[in-house]
């Protein structure tokens, strides 16, 4: 076993363990932290495949940004876990059986017999000055620019959908629009009414004071 193979198995074992813990951890914060571990080890695997840029992006974007946000949300929301995990252990035997079966089936077909090194051959390693950031950028903005733009459109749809589904103007909201506030004119707040001068006689009216007391 070479050094890289050993590293690969080390990372792969941690990745599988972390993945399992994500779905079995009782505490959602722990689950999110295990997900961070899973991302981190996956980044390590990509590093082994010479995909340095993707590995770093995975750590920066997923671990650095997405998961931090995730953790905040998990910590702030009061989620009733017991209710969410209801039936988890009841379904586990059947689900576990199906999962094991799937893994065996896939191993039969996707094992080294069809995709092993003897059949496919390892790609030639690149020179030390090879920059896969540059290569990625080159194909992303030339050959795959259409797909790239489409991905951007999908993000736009996600934004539109998120706003359309969650934005509510609450009637009881105490929010005041500053622009409206600045634009206010005297006439909006104060109405001057011209009236005839009337002499008030309320206090002298008979019965008015007595009835109230």
């Amino acid at each position, binding site marked *: 076993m070479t050094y890289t193979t050993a590293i690969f198995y080390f990372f792969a074992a941690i990745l599988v363990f972390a993945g399992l813990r994500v779905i079995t951890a009782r505490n959602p914060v722990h689950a999110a932290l295990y997900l961070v571990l899973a991302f981190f080890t996956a980044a390590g695997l990509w590093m082994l495949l010479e995909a340095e840029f993707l590995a770093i992006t995975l750590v920066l974007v997923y671990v650095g940004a997405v998961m931090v946000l995730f953790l905040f949300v998990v910590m702030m929301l009061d989620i009733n876990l017991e209710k969410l995990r209801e039936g988890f252990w009841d379904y586990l035997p059947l689900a576990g059986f199906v999962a094991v079966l799937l893994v065996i089936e896939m191993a039969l077909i*996707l094992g080294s017999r069809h995709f092993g090194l003897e059949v496919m051959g390892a790609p030639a390693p690149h020179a030390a000055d090879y920059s896969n950031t540059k290569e990625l950028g080159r194909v992303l903005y030339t050959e795959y620019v259409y797909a790239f733009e489409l991905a951007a459109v999908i993000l736009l749809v996600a934004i539109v959908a998120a706003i359309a589904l969650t934005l509510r103007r609450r009637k009881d909201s105490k929010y005041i629009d500053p622009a409206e506030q600045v634009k206010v004119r005297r006439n909006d707040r104060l109405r001057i009414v011209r009236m005839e001068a009337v002499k008030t006689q309320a206090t002298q009216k008979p019965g008015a004071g007595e009835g109230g007391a």
Partner: protein
Amino acid sequence: MRHALMQFAPVFPEMFVLAMVSLILVVDAAASDGKRYLAYLLSLVTLAGAAFLTLRDFSTLPVLTLGGLFIDDPLSDVLKLFLYLTVAVVLVYSRDYLRQRGLYKGEFFVLALFALLGMMVMVSASHFLTLYLGLELLSLSLYAMVALQRDSSVATEAAMKYFVLGALASGMLLYGMSMVYGVTGSLGLGDIAIALQDGTDLRIPLVFGIVFIVAGLAFKLGAVPFHMWIPDVYHGAPTAMTLFIGSAPKIAAFAFVIRILGQGLESQVSDWRGMLVILAVLSMALGNIAAIAQSNLKRMLAYSTISHMGFMLLGILAGSQNGYGGAMFYVLAYALMSLGGFGMILLLSRAGFEADRLEDFKGLNRRSPWLAFMMLLLMFSMAGVPPTVGFYAKLSVLQAVVEIGYVWLAVAAVLFSLIGAFYYLRIVKLMYFDAPHDAVPIAASPDARVVMSINGLAILALGIMPQPLMAVCIHAIRASF
């Protein structure tokens, strides 16, 4: 086939739609509540403009552009024109319904046009990447549209189911695509076809991948046994959204299937034909039988969709140009019928009343003989009764199936559609022979009535003279394959 790395002219319709969606987004954000019709009108303008651009650059030869991700061929152009038409009709039918339910907002139109853009991308994709991105663009817009009625728990539940199962289907599809990529070393459909031309040593992984792809496609089409989401989503979604989901995306799904199976994996027809036979038979059986038990028209039409998709698969599994042409004719005819069927529910509904139960159609003849007649045509066409387009559509796919020697399959299909005729004719009986329940006059707007009349008469006209449309379909398939 002309091959150009960067040639933008064929992509103008997509660019135009995207630009217009962005414009509508801004205009609607700035417009006050009384000016929601701006988004509606601009959407119709967008559709007309896109149709103009597609027609102006109507291709006679397939053009591969944008690095081989995008293909512009007669098939894609014809399907795109039908997509514009379908979406336009959907918008006209749903306007009043949306207004009465507080859903008449810019977001509906923006999402509908985004969905249209996704369908256009799917229709002219020549690469797994664009096929998948187009599908996601469509699906994400549809999930959001179903959930747009936020305060209705039924609609939210439908959206949730749709989302979860849709994500599962996408996962399967991607997994299958990755297998095919592993075997052929390419994601482009043309390259895959070339790589598989002389067979491959990796047959087992390839078939494994095809199984996942077919399962994913079946999910998206709603073929049995991957149909569970269809009745719930169709029933739970607001009718305008059901109308949208039930019409235009079927055309795109046809293109999706035909591109992957017919163009990319053409040489593996013997592998996927058997799978499609199972899907088709089960869909026709379950769709037609389960529809009998429904008392809700939306649910009934959902099961009818399942059976129609089974019928369409018959044409595809024939694997011949006639079969593809027949399937294309079928899906276009089905889009027309589905527009009419769900559109009728929209026309009969009013504020606070959905008109989606079978009994709401009782005695329609006495309330509005013309609309009852249109519904009669629609139901006859769905059942496949002769002078309507549904008959000819069924005939053309059956012919293709018989041509490849699957006579038993054609016989089974006819038997199942005979069973299906029962529940279509039941509606006709309710409309003509039962006394009306409610005497409230039908409050459909004049433009929706006119479009509905054209829709119904088109079904009759295309049934009497199917040759022009059939010729277009066959030509599009011949020139693109």
